[in-house]
């Protein structure tokens, strides 16, 4: 689909088949002026080390992460949506309630990749990143549950909570020292024996959660609360990136004791993430992806679900998420496909002679119907 990564490259089209310079650069800095912005339609590479830190391998869509392994680099196309997100992130201010953006679009148009590009952008601008790979994991891929001792009726998910904390730790290594300076505002009594005292760095909460899975869900909640507090105090800016965010109001596969499915509002992690989305805190940006996975039914051969936000979030979710700025991801334009095509040709990714011809270029474009996912798949097989 989309190669991932960020490097400034010249428009490959002009240079024809000559090799592209690979040099890392920081794009979309928070105080960037117009001319600093990378032009929409160019390819950008992400450094592998950065990608590793940001755990891109698991967060990117599968075809792309496999391509990352094969080609040894992550190169993505900069398109309209990420430019919009970057401009929105520039507006984030300590007085402004958190800006909510919802990425929506048809299948295979680049929602997840844009989200990851935004995460990288946040990284380069030293924001704190709360990145959730997929909210569906919280609602539908719950391996084991525990009833919460903190609030009765809530259901904890130790394995997912630990994963979230570990992911947070890994992704925020670039600001770990800053996080180490931020202090907790109150005593946290996790259980009778474990507690975190007031005035301790919040990194302790993370460590506590990772070491004790049965406390992890509560630690996640505490961590998020501290992040919100410190963002309000303008200590740091926070990007909350949730893929498949509409699943937070969707279907659950968690069974309660009476063999009924628990609603998502009964799951602690879902509640914590919903609090991160709600706009009672400032100095942050919440980037959500509305994905059809939640409502699409594989057994329904005739129905086609919509991919628009109201349909996917549902009434309750929509009213919670409002007011937000919807950002649409669309199919490629011809120039975008050209840029990608030239990249693939240079990388010798397009193997067959037919694919490398002019005729092949046009065919690939049209066969995929300009859909980024199918374009990548076609190029992989030709």
């Amino acid at each position, binding site marked *: 689909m989309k190669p991932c990564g960020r490097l400034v490259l010249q428009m490959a089209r002009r240079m024809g088949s000559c090799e592209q310079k690979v040099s890392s650069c920081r794009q979309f800095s928070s105080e960037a002026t117009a001319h600093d912005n990378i032009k929409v339609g160019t390819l950008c590479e992400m450094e592998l080390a950065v990608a590793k830190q940001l755990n891109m391998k698991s967060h990117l869509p599968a075809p792309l992460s496999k391509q990352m392994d094969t080609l040894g680099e992550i190169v993505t196309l900069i398109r309209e949506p990420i430019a919009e997100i970057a*401009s*929105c992130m520039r*507006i984030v*201010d300590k*007085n*402004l*309630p958190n800006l909510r953006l919802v990425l*929506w679009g048809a299948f295979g148009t680049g929602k997840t990749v844009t989200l990851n590009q935004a995460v990288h952008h946040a990284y380069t601008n030293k924001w704190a990143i709360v990145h959730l790979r997929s909210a569906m994991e919280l609602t539908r891929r719950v391996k084991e549950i525990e009833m919460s001792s903190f609030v009765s009726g809530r259901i904890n998910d130790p394995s997912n909570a630990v994963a979230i904390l570990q992911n947070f730790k890994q992704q925020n290594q670039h600001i770990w020292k800053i996080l180490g300076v931020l202090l907790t505002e109150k005593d946290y009594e996790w259980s009778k024996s474990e507690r975190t005292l007031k005035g301790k760095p919040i990194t302790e909460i993370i460590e506590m959660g990772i070491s004790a899975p049965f406390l992890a869900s509560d630690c996640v909640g505490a961590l998020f609360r501290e992040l919100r507090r410190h963002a309000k105090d303008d200590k740091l800016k926070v990007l909350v990136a949730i893929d498949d965010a509409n699943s937070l109001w969707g279907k659950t596969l968690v069974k309660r004791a009476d063999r009924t499915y628990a609603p998502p509002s009964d799951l602690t992690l879902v509640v914590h993430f919903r609090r991160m989305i709600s*706009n009672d805190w400032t100095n942050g940006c919440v980037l959500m992806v509305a994905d059809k996975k939640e409502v699409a039914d594989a057994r329904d051969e005739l129905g086609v679900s*919509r*991919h*628009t*936000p*109201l*349909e996917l979030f549902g009434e309750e979710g929509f*009213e919670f998420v*409002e*007011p*937000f*700025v*919807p*950002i*649409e991801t669309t199919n490629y334009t011809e120039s975008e496909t050209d840029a990608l095509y030239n990249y693939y040709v240079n990388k010798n990714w397009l193997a067959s002679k037919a694919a490398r011809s002019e005729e092949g270029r046009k065919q690939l474009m049209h066969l995929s119907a300009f859909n980024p996912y199918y374009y990548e798949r076609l190029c992989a097989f030709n």
Partner: protein
Amino acid sequence: MHRLSHIGTRSKSTLADKLRNAVGGADYGKSKQAMAAGSLTAKDENGEDFRELYVMPKRKLRGQTQLEQATGRAEVKTRSRFDLMDRLAERPPRSEEMDPEKHTWSDIWPAARTFASSVVPLPVRMGSRPNVEKRAPFKKEGNLELVKIPNFLHLTPVAVQQHCEAIKKFCTPYPPELLSDASITPSLLPISVQYSTYIHQGTNIRDIRSRVITMIVDVDYLKLSENAAEKLVRLAGNRYNQETGQLTIITDRCHTRKQNLDYAHYLLTVLYHEANKQEAWAELKERSDNLQVEFDGSTTKSKLEDLIEKAKSSGLKTDEKALAEFGEMWKTYRNTEETAEKTREYGRQMKKMLGI
């Protein structure tokens, strides 16, 4: 039975008499006749009457008749039919006695009746034949198939014309206002009733679907108050079409069309009167009970107002007047079918309002 008089052969004379008659005169046989008759003069020696001697039968002998037959001079006796008088007593079919000058078809066949082959003057045939070229379908006399099917012989154009002429004096002309401008029909005639009639060729001419009645009413013309109109919409359920504002009542629960029509009228009346009733519990209606989501009073509006204020204070070029426009767009977005284009419009207006 009538017997034609014929001359019996037994009264004919013998061959010898004939010859004698042929040779002799008229009175030749008188003496003989006298003797044969047994007169007083003709007595024998003993004084007894003369007894005629039977020598030859008084008929044509077999040989003679055979000769006559062979030569072709035999008298052919025409025997009449045994049922001849019965046949003569029967009249020919009526269709043969019809004269277009003297009779009118609508007098002969005034109403629908089963096919009567003797009355219908048409040489109509009906029947399935394996090879139509060789043998024609069966004729109408005694043809049950012609009897079984429905015929429309009572509906000749002339008959129809006569019916129309008879009814015309009870009719009024079609309203010229409706003829000139068909679009004002709903305002003058707000209720439209639709039903279908089905014609079948077969053993059963009936169709159960002909009792279905569809009644379409334009709700605006009921002139209900706002609350009553909303109540009507709720009562009607999916019979009410929001886009066209029409209430459609389809009934087929009664056996006949007339009954279904009456039922449809009854339903409309009940809906109207129930809609006009205001119940005490209707006061308990909340925002979540509304049929449509309103922008005013929604959490979105309050959050937006808050956001716009804060955005202004942090330096964005917000547009407050755009909030009303946004509210309109939001209401359409929430209450009608969501499309990609509507979502894009939502995005555009949001960005404009917040000054992004």
